[in-house]
């Protein structure tokens, strides 16, 4: 099971979601992707997208204003 981290701290929307999609599209072997962001709007965007794709996800706030989103893509592929 391949697990990767993606650091999008300091990026504003739509960059975090674009990068998340980009990484998942490029590296198809990734099952779990952990995205770290400090933009609440971007976090919401990513969660909405995961929901629309049917991916399981978890969100954790590491500290005030920093969120860690764990996307469990599994072997689902939408790209």
């Amino acid at each position: 099971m391949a697990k990767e981290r993606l650091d999008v701290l300091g990026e504003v929307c739509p960059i975090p979601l674009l990068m998340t999609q980009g990484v998942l599209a490029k590296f198809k072997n990734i099952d779990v992707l952990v995205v770290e962001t400090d933009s609440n709007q971007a976090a919401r965007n990513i969660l909405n997208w995961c929901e629309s794709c049917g991916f399981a996800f978890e969100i954790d706030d590491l500290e005030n204003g920093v969120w860690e989103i764990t996307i469990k893509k599994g072997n689902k592929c939408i790209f």
Partner: protein
Amino acid sequence: MRKSSQMLAVILLSFIISGFALAAYSYQRSFPLLWAFGIAIGFVFYRSGICFSTAFSDIVIFRNFRMFRTSLILLLVSFLGFNIVQVYSNISNGIIPGYIFPVGLHTAIGGILFGMGMVLTGACVCGTLQKLSEGFLLFWFVLGGVVIGSLLGAYHYPWWEVSYLSWEPVFLPNIFGWRVSWLLTVIILVGVFGGTFLLERRK
């Protein structure tokens, strides 16, 4: 839930807010109400996370119309509210408040410039204020850019006025009357709202 880390800031801010309200009250009685209204709107904006740049960029990048629809609802609500104010003011003193300006080439050029800036920075003006209040330090620079841009725009506006503004502003109620223009605006906004669902389905 995490404990609030900003207790001192909250207390300090409450003092500043109430102090300013008191000062405003001594100036004119209705001012604290406007002040409270402004703060309430700011709070709603912050909690709703409404973002005009997302509204447009999400359509193009992700074909997601969610925020665009939210903005349409916002437009509709503000139209209805302003309409009441305008009609009321028109009846009581014959003056119609609001930004009623001519549309032209300068509007399109300004829109393109503003749009580029808004997508590059990730926020329009209200989004900048929202993100600033969330603690995004980057947006202090964006706010600086907004101020500089507005100053330049205001400074250069007379040139556009002379070069491009040769016609009168169009105000729909003057052409169709209040009732028809009201209905027309609502129909157009609701129509666009419904249209986004069709566009979304046709991926």
